[in-house]
């Protein structure tokens, strides 16, 4: 390979990585946290009790509740509880005032065992991280576009990174710590190369997920302006039939669970939607739980006549192209992952986050060396430094504040869930201001220490403000809640270690009175949930 080509690729890698690095760091970190979306939501709404799973009993309770409270609705949606998220979710859409309109969904959470409405505190829970990682808290569709562009850049950075890295196999097992800039590069290469299958999969699949938004040409060519028709054909289960206007009793839903399961040779039902309940034209759509298969298949629903309970639509054979797209979707989301594999997903996500973080640190470290003698940093380097600190250490502290806000904000506060999110962004914003006014290394140490203190104290705060603390959850064997507390504790200890390492590195430099400030371990923060 010509050296000129490799240099060009290195240039591309350096600059695309820098410009999108901060955004990608945030996307990767929140996306990684989103692998524990259900668990995070459970911790943030602990009032919803975890019960032994019994799909049929829960479904009967949901049907009874909806028949009492939402008899005239045009549509019901029932989300069955699972091991990760214990709430029995019911939503309904009131019949529209005028035909063609779609009403706003009303959403309630029920106790999966008693069917009583649970008044959980208002909170977005893990859904916030999940939404943020592809919508970036921007109005539709701008956030999706920006995150998709970031994914494209990430893909470019991965490919150029592979080309730039000359000795992938020779240095496969190489990591040399305590060697300053060298160690950072080793670390960047190690997490990049060793976890490369995950990086490629996650980046490419994110482009596949939004393919109809990014490259709609084939859809537009076949369907013209009637894009709706395309989706109606792809997702036939989403079509809502017109109500007949004649009342009829809805069949009991629980027995239909078993028929649906037989259609999938033993698969599980995740969501049930009932169209026109109480009408002669009622239909029941049972969608398969994502935890059943790696390949996501939106068309694998079983449709029943809502009055007679007969099967009127069975899952169709998934076409090859859709199976490929579905497998990328499924791999990205990881709904199928059990606890062990989920943790591995989480670790891989952290490795990706670490790869981006080390890259940003290397960019700055290399350039700082040139200005070390004078001790004055040019504006652009200082800007990168401030953004590095705020986008990494600041973000991690903001995640911790988000959890704190969940426990500290009064339950009766209006717009409580919004205030949790506001707390996150206020903290993140303040971290930029803080980084601006403090010298680089001090700012790193202080923000990492703040994050460490906040995370370590999460189990304590939880114990003081809720009856769901470790003293209760561990003896009860509620490993979702206990695991959350313990993971926070672990992340806090890790951040404390990072802060200490950072401070010591700074200390030795000042003691030796060498102006040359090597980028000694600024150790990456990989905040976990």
């Amino acid at each position, binding site marked *: 390979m010509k050296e000129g080509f490799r240099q060009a690729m290195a240039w591309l890698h350096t600059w695309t990585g820098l410009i999108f690095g901060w955004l990608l760091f945030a996307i990767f970190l929140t996306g990684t946290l989103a692998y524990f979306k259900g668990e995070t939501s459970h911790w943030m709404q602990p009032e919803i009790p975890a019960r032994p799973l019994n799909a049929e009993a829960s479904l009967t309770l949901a049907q009874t509740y909806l028949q009492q409270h939402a008899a005239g609705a045009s549509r019901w949606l029932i989300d069955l509880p699972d091991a990760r998220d214990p709430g029995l979710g019911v939503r309904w859409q009131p019949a529209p005032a005028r035909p063609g309109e779609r009403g706003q969904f009303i959403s309630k959470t029920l106790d999966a065992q008693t069917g009583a409405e649970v008044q959980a505190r208002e909170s977005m829970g893990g859904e916030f991280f999940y939404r943020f990682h592809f919508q970036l808290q921007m109005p539709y569709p701008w956030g999706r576009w920006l995150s998709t562009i970031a994914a494209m850049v990430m893909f470019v950075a991965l490919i150029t990174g592979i080309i730039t890295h000359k000795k992938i196999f020779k240095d496969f097992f190489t990591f040399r*710590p305590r060697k300053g800039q060298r160690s950072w590069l080793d670390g960047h290469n*190690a997490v990049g190369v060793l976890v490369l299958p995950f990086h490629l999969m996650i980046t490419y699949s994110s482009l596949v997920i939004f393919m109809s938004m990014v490259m709609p040409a084939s859809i537009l060519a076949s369907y013209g302006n009637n894009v709706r028709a395309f989706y109606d054909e792809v997702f036939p289960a989403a079509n809502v039939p017109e109500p007949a206007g004649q009342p009829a009793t809805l069949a009991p839903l629980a027995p239909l669970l078993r028929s649906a399961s037989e259609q999938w040779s033993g698969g599980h039902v995740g969501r049930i939607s009932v169209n026109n309940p109480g009408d002669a034209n009622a239909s029941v759509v049972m969608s398969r739980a994502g935890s059943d298969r*790696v390949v996501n298949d939106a068309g694998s629903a079983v449709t029943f006549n809502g009055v007679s309970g007969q099967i009127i639509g069975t899952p169709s054979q998934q076409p090859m192209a859709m199976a490929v797209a579905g497998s990328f979707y499924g791999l990205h989301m990881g709904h199928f992952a059990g606890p062990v594999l989920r943790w591995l997903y989480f670790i891989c996500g952290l490795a990706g986050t670490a790869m981006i973080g080390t890259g940003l640190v290397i960019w700055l470290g290399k350039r700082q060396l040139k200005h070390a003698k004078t001790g004055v940093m040019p504006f652009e380097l200082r800007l990168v430094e401030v953004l590095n600190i705020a986008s990494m250490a600041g973000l991690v502290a903001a995640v911790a504040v988000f959890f704190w806000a969940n426990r500290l904000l009064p339950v009766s506060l209006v717009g409580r869930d919004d205030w949790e999110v506001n707390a996150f962004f206020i903290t993140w914003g303040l971290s930029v201001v803080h980084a601006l006014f403090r010298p680089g290394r001090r700012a790193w140490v202080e923000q990492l220490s703040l994050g460490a203190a906040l995370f370590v104290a999460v189990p304590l705060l939880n114990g003081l403000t809720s009856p769901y603390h470790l003293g209760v959850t561990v003896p009860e064997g509620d490993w979702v809640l206990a695991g959350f507390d313990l993971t926070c504790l672990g992340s806090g200890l890790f951040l404390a270690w990072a802060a200490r390492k950072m401070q010591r590195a700074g200390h030795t430099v000042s003691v030796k009175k060498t102006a040359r400030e090597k980028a000694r371990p600024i150790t990456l923060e990989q905040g976990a949930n």
Partner: protein
Amino acid sequence: MLLALLLCYSAFTALCLAMPRHHEELLGHKPSARRRQGLKLAGWLLLGLSLWAAVFMKGWSFGLVDWCAVLMLSALTLVLLLPYRPRLALTMAGLSLLASPVAAWALN
């Protein structure tokens, strides 16, 4: 998944030892050509075996995902362990190799 993990980890350790530089760092001397060949072959065989173990347990779709996950995890563990606790890294490889028949028997 455990069996695949044990096999993967020992496979990567063997492949690592097959490289003269790492062999010298870990064991104090350069390997002979025969030894290198042997280690390389053992490493690849173990990798293949771990793939078989993962797919055998859970079928192709789940098995392949599991295998990729343990592949990345075991390589990452080995590389992060090597500079700090080289003896432990080697001991763990030996132990995983010894434990893998037990794991295979227990999981069946």
